[in-house]
């Protein structure tokens, strides 16, 4: 079992250009980060390329991981999620309006709801449950699907400003709930 301290220690050693530690970090974390990239991109070839980008970033930025005070796995997951979302949005930029329509119509909400229900983070689950179902769904889609305000407004068929208001109020409720 790799502990939080182990991963932190590996990142510290990677910052000192320790290639063995880099390999150990990859072995310990790449399956999780590949899972995240696959979840966001839903495409193996794209996820494999993004996984490479992720670890190149890890190698180059290990010396700065403490800057924002994130835990080691959160730091890695954030790099993975952001890299995958960047890639996804780049791909989506090439979409035609018809393709966009199809994408928005295609994927239902089912798996999302299941995924969050099974989460071990009770507090997070409980706080998401306090939100209206649609609002919780919008926040999850922004994080896990990289959806923008425009995507979300189209999906929920509401004006852009309504979407912004929903989401900001949801964030405020979440933050207040999570801080309790």
């Amino acid at each position, binding site marked *: 079992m790799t502990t939080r301290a182990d991963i932190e220690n590996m990142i510290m050693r990677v910052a000192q250009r320790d*290639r063995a530690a880099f390999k150990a970090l*990859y072995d310990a974390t*790449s*399956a*999780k980060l*590949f*899972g*995240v990239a*696959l*979840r966001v991109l839903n495409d193996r070839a794209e*996820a*494999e*390329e993004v*996984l*490479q*980008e992720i*670890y*190149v*970033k890890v190698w*180059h*930025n290990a*010396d*700065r991981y403490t*800057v*924002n*005070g*994130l835990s080691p*796995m*959160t*730091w890695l*997951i*954030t*790099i993975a*999620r*952001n890299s995958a*979302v*960047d890639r996804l949005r780049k791909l989506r930029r090439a979409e035609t309006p018809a393709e966009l329509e199809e994408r928005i119509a295609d994927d239902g909400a089912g798996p999302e709801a299941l*995924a*969050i229900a099974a*989460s*071990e*983070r009770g507090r*997070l689950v409980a706080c998401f449950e306090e939100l209206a179902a649609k609002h919780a769904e919008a*926040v*999850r889609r*922004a*994080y*896990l699907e*990289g959806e*923008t*305000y425009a995507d979300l407004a189209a999906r929920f068929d509401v004006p852009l400003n309504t979407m912004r*208001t929903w*989401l*900001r*109020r949801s*964030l*405020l409720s*979440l*933050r207040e709930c*999570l801080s309790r």
Partner: protein
Amino acid sequence: MSDQDQPDRDDRTLAGEYTLGLLSAEEAAAFEARMVQDPALRALYAQWAEDFAGLTDDITPQAPPALVWQQIEAGLFDDTRARGSWLRRFTLWGGGLVAAAVLLLAVFLPDLVERGPVPPVDPPYVAQIAAEDGSLVVQAVYDDATGTLFVDREAGGAAPGRALELWLIAGEGAPVSLGVMPQDAQAILAVPDDLRRRVAGAVLAISDEPQGGSPTGAPTGAVLAVGPVQES
């Protein structure tokens, strides 16, 4: 926030929107510039990052194919193989990565400065680093193939006895100095090889610093102007 139409806008929601990637490039740049100087804002961001990372708890880990590690290793460490597969590497890494900031040294190119700096023709990336009130405006164009960052100060300048320092803020990283802006309005900064890819999608910021630049390696004075690096 002073925006009266948006009473629900406060730093907690703003940090959440930033973490989700919902802000426009300009809004994100302004948020990052504020984060540089505000530990409370960084803490808000860290909180959201921790909480949202919890949404990945149920994602089943999946072992990537062995080829991925081989390509990471080849890309980072194997210079001879890398040369052989240069074209492949280019397509793998050249896609305009957004990355956290790393150490970046600005090197002024004396031969180019002598002839007078010339902006790259048809540059892939541009940035307008501007103060909200227009008191400082710097246009930047960046060529990631050559690592050439051309800056043109159109308005404003350093206060007497002070210097303007240019910073790169990328992803979740701290700002990294690109050097003190030269006296001349136009200049070329060379970005070292291993950092060239990191400029795309990052934010450039200019801070007020003592002559010779920040003594600490981090911005010490006010952030005067910010702007995102965008594809041209």
